[in-house]
């Protein structure tokens, strides 16, 4: 082993803070994209699970659940999209916990990089993963008879809204991951939270079929607003009356406000948390 004495030049002074932030964010995003490429089981989970949900729900419950003014497959798809983006955000939590466990967070924190770059890379990577899931799911839905009955613009608005929500929710899970510090606990704990908020909603059944306490919860549930927004933008809402709750009467606006609130609260909390964590 012979040591080399070359001393690489330090950062060129022309780099301004914004381009440093961009460069660091891109470097860490690339890291996560490589991970998606090299971890087939993760990709399989992200692809197979949505296909399974679409087929199971549409074929198993399709005959039993009736929805006014449309068939169940049309009604169901927006619900499954919402469920998938919410569940997909847990990757951010378990991945942050895993990075902490592996000690690579210490490596990042000892580098002169932007303090938000690791989180930016994390949530960007998961956005890509969720986008892949979404495309696969839409294709599967199309095969079982799902159709978009709106304009191209509305379709992309719906897709964008779902992904935006998943992105914002990734920051919530990232904070959870850094606080809990165990990937296993994150995976188990998040399901305890995510199952109720996705199932006690309008995702799989019309909200008016629920018993009273659950109906109230479902009406106020932000996931219901997300589902309602996607349903309307994809033109799948049928003719059933929408519950007379502001959030469901104005679902798109509700989701946008929700996304902004989540980001404004959780991005700074995540960055603050990141600045003080260390492995073991």
């Amino acid at each position: 082993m012979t040591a080399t004495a070359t001393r690489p030049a330090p950062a060129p002074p022309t780099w301004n803070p914004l381009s440093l932030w961009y460069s660091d964010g891109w470097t860490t995003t690339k890291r996560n994209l490589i991970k998606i490429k090299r971890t087939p089981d993760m990709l399989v989970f992200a692809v197979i699970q949505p296909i399974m949900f679409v087929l199971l729900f549409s074929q198993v419950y399709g005959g039993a659940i009736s929805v006014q003014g449309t068939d169940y497959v049309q009604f169901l798809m927006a619900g499954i999209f919402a469920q998938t983006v919410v569940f997909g955000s847990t990757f951010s939590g378990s991945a942050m916990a895993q990075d902490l466990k592996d000690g690579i967070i210490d490596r990042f924190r000892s580098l002169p990089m932007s303090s938000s770059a690791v989180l930016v890379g994390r949530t960007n990577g998961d956005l890509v993963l969720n986008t892949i899931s979404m495309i696969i799911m839409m294709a599967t839905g199309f095969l079982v008879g799902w159709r978009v009955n709106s304009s191209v613009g509305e379709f992309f608005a719906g897709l964008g809204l779902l992904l935006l929500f998943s992105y914002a929710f990734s920051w919530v899970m990232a904070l959870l991951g850094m606080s809990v510090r165990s990937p296993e606990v994150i995976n188990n704990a998040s399901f305890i939270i995510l199952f109720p908020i996705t199932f006690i909603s309008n995702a799989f059944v019309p909200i008016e079929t629920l018993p009273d306490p659950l109906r109230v919860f479902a009406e106020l549930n932000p996931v219901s607003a997300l589902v309602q927004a996607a349903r309307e933008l994809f033109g799948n809402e049928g003719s059933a009356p929408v519950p007379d709750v502001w959030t469901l009467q104005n679902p798109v606006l509700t989701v946008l406000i929700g996304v902004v609130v989540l980001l404004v609260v959780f991005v700074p909390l995540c960055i603050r948390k990141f600045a003080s964590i260390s492995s073991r």
Partner: protein
Amino acid sequence: MTIIEASGLTKTYKSKTGPVHALAGLDLTVPRGTVKAILGPNGAGKTTVVKILTTLIRPDTGTAVVDGINVLDDPKAVRSIIGVSGQYAAVDENLTGFENLEMVGRLYHLGGAASRRRAQELIDLFELTAAGNRPVKGFSGGMRRRIDLAGALVFNPKILFLDEPTTGLDPRSRMALWGVINKLVDDGTTVLLTTQYLEEADQLADSIAVIDYGKVIAEGTSDELKAQIGGHRVVIALVDAADANAAREVLARYGAGEPQVSSDGRGIDVAVTDGPPALQHVLADLRTAGIELHDAGMRRPTLDDVFLKLTGHKADMAAGENEDEKMEKVK
């Protein structure tokens, strides 16, 4: 000429069994361009010192200045002049060795071309050329360790922090790493390393700080520390452990301190002030007493002896609980 100056560092972790004082008023100075070893058993606070100096955690009280920069005021400025290799290999399993190092280079803002060039140099330097383009997932512990160490060298740092750098390395890699460290020091890098291996501190460091229970209990060159416990030691190995008491008395007669008997009762050694004559006397008396020997000789004191003398316990015995467990409980 001081490049690292820490004073009065304290850090207390909460644990189920009460507070654990990882650092209890630690002072440390490192002259520019030298190698300082922090030597201590598990749980002595070695990792905590390194984490504070490398901006990963904040001390409860005390100050730390690295190359004129206050670690607490401007951590980012500190990060741009240091290289760190922690106790556990901090590498991304899914990236190749090359990609790991290239990523670190980019995060030091070296730019793409320079990052790739440096990554390849380090891959070759650490003899990972054949495996460099395979994901780290398939690497052995020693190979991961070398990638992690290379990560600390991507940006030839002013100060290199190495927390137990040779743990998990085979002897060949250990020698290689020592070579790299010596070369860096020749080029003007300051190195702060922690170790449980007395031999390592002895080989590498210009100066050694012995720490125990979060405090520096002795400091100096290896020779200075050894001088603290006298010159030579006379060592004998008995054929029959039944002779231990008689032999012990003989050694006590010529020794400068209490003779130490090994756990199997057959090895005894004692510090002496005048080496060769003491050995001659010991051998003559043992012969007169009819005690049979396997082996007998004289040796210079090791840092193990220093540690035993200073702390009352052996260096390889945990001072308290393991540092990992301590951190575990903080969560």
